[in-house]
């Protein structure tokens, strides 16, 4: 995936497994992607597709055992993250990579004042005194547009709404001006107007700080609003990746197209009938030998069942972002179809 871009983070051939009573789950299967500097990469997929496990693996947040990173590399600049000792990981988490999660309450201490929790971060990571820290905490709360920040800093988490807590989490993540912000379903638990506020704050901070963002979501609307680049995950693999326009307008994988058709659009020009994707994702205890989407794919061919498709390169966006899809329909010998955007129709 080294395609001449300035990548702040590069993940290659990542594989993660979990041992459970039911057997070994192959949660992440050969995942590679690059995060462009100052840009937002959305990783989109349904529950169980491995999108959260992927970022947890590179943050060293997979409990081992039962988890296991069996293969791959994740480089932040020149630093290899996988296998890094806990002490060094702790320096990177917070300092160079900030993270926010779906449920802010699970990352905050309910018995500590909001301001003190931010001060703690500032003391550990930036060596500030308590007084300096408190002043900085109020500035940070102000930057994520929490009204009356100095009073709010003296309150406890239970006195905050879900949206306000998510702002606090962004403030904590921001405390060390990280190069990369990983946001794992940051707005899934929030109402739509509050979601719009949080997304707006993330965009503004990216403009001001030049942060690179990995946004994990299942919501195609959020992807369209936020992403520069997109990786679509299914059954532990990235099935398609490219610029946001390539993914939405020139989808090359039947799953990407299926997701779009299953999501209501409000384009008044388009009289749409929702087309569900029948069936459900495969069991990752016994991942399919061939394409993970085979059982649900309306265009499946015989070879898809037993042969794992490689990631075929389709095109490059005007900005040079590679568009690729893991689908046999992209093979030079595949039958022509209007169902997906095929490579040959692009190159010819």
């Amino acid at each position, binding site marked *: 995936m080294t395609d001449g871009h300035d990548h702040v983070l590069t993940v290659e051939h990542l594989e993660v497994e979990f041992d459970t009573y039911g057997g070994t789950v192959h949660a992440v299967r050969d995942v590679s992607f690059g995060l462009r500097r100052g840009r937002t990469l959305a990783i989109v997929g*349904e*529950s169980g597709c491995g999108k959260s496990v992927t970022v947890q693996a590179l943050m060293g947040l997979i409990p081992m055992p039962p988890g296991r990173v069996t293969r791959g590399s994740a480089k932040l600049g020149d630093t290899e993250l996988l296998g890094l000792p806990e002490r060094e990981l702790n320096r990177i988490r917070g300092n160079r990579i900030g993270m926010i999660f779906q449920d802010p309450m699970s990352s905050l201490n309910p018995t500590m004042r909001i301001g003190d929790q931010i001060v703690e971060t500032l003391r550990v990571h930036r060596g500030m005194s308590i007084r300096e820290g408190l002043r900085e905490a109020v500035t940070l709360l102000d930057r994520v547009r929490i009204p009356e920040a100095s009073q709010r800093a003296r309150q406890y988490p239970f006195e905050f*709404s879900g*949206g*306000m807590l998510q702002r606090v989490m962004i403030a904590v993540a921001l405390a060390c001006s990280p190069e990369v912000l990983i946001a794992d379903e940051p707005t899934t638990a929030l*109402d*739509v*107007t*509050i*979601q*719009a*506020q949080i*997304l*707006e704050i993330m965009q503004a901070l990216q403009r001001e700080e030049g942060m690179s963002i990995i946004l994990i979501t*299942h*919501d*195609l*609307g*959020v*992807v*369209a*609003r936020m*992403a520069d680049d997109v990786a679509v995950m299914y059954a532990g693999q990235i099935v398609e990746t490219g610029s*946001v*326009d390539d993914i*939405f*307008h020139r989808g090359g994988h039947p799953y990407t197209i*299926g*997701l*779009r*058709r*299953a*999501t*209501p*659009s*409000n*384009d*008044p020009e388009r009289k*749409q009938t*929702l*087309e*569900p*994707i*029948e069936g*459900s994702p495969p069991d990752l205890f016994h991942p399919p030998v061939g394409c993970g989407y085979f059982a649900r794919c309306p265009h499946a061919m015989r070879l898809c069942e037993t042969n794992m498709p490689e990631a075929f390169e389709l095109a490059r966006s005007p900005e040079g972002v590679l568009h690729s899809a893991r689908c046999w329909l992209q093979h030079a010998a595949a039958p022509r179809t209007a169902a997906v955007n095929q490579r040959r129709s692009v190159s010819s």
Partner: protein
Amino acid sequence: MSELLLETRGLKRYFRLDRRRQVHAVDGVSLAIQANEILGLVGESGSGKSTFGKTVLGLHDKTEGEVRYRGELLPSRYRSADFQRWSRTMQMIFQDPYSSLNPRMTAGEIIAEGLSLHSDLSAAAVREEVARWLVQVGLSPDHASRYPHEFSGGQRQRIGIARAMIVKPEFVVCDEPISALDVSVQAQVINLLSELKTSFGLTLLFIAHDLSMVRYVSDRMAVMYLGALAELGPADDVFYRAMHPYTRMLVASNPEPDPDVERRRAPEPIDGEIPSPVNVGAGCRFAGRCPEVMARCREVTPELIPVKDHSSGAIRQVACHLYD
């Protein structure tokens, strides 16, 4: 023309917190549902939309106001005989297909329960009916002997739908039926509901927070904020030409799965959060967040009034002083 099926007038449901404080969950909602329509009810968490649905069905007692079904006044507090009578006509599909199915009962027992209570069919006839409904909702007859944990979320929601439908209700309240499901599965359940609506002449109150999905499934859309209706009208009219400033804020917040639309989107101020529903005072409930707030809004509670949509010619109802 359409026939009035269910009507609420000034329906209120308060929850008492202590001697001085009450949660005004539903605070005077009047609306009419026509036979064979899907009325979508959208609102953010805390808007009272679920409480409204449950109060309509008698799952909550009514604090004030009335509900009429085909003109007949429903009891303000249901006793078991009332449930026995009305649950044949009105049913509910719940949000969480995990907690709304008894884990100790098989799918077949869950689906059969309503029918066994409401009919004198033989056990064999009930079994047959259950098998028929399993197929109807896209499962198979041999799923009857399995337990809820053996099903995926989407399949469980199908069981919930079969459970509600087997007594052949006329009116079904769907309380966030898809919000716990994955995107690809949501469309399966939505299409199933529309099929059932067509083949059984159902009337649905479809409660959800997903504006795009509500616009897609509903004939008319009602927007609720802090216990009261803000706007009610044909779903497309309300979405594409929102009149109430709150509806406009919802539409502006709603992310569209199209990067071109998102890039073209004009920035709109989306400020504030839904306030506490405890002891709501006079004035418009949205006044604190409204970009077009006027002095009167803070004093006089706006009533739902009919306003003409000049593009479609349809009349809709809006509770906003901008249209007085």
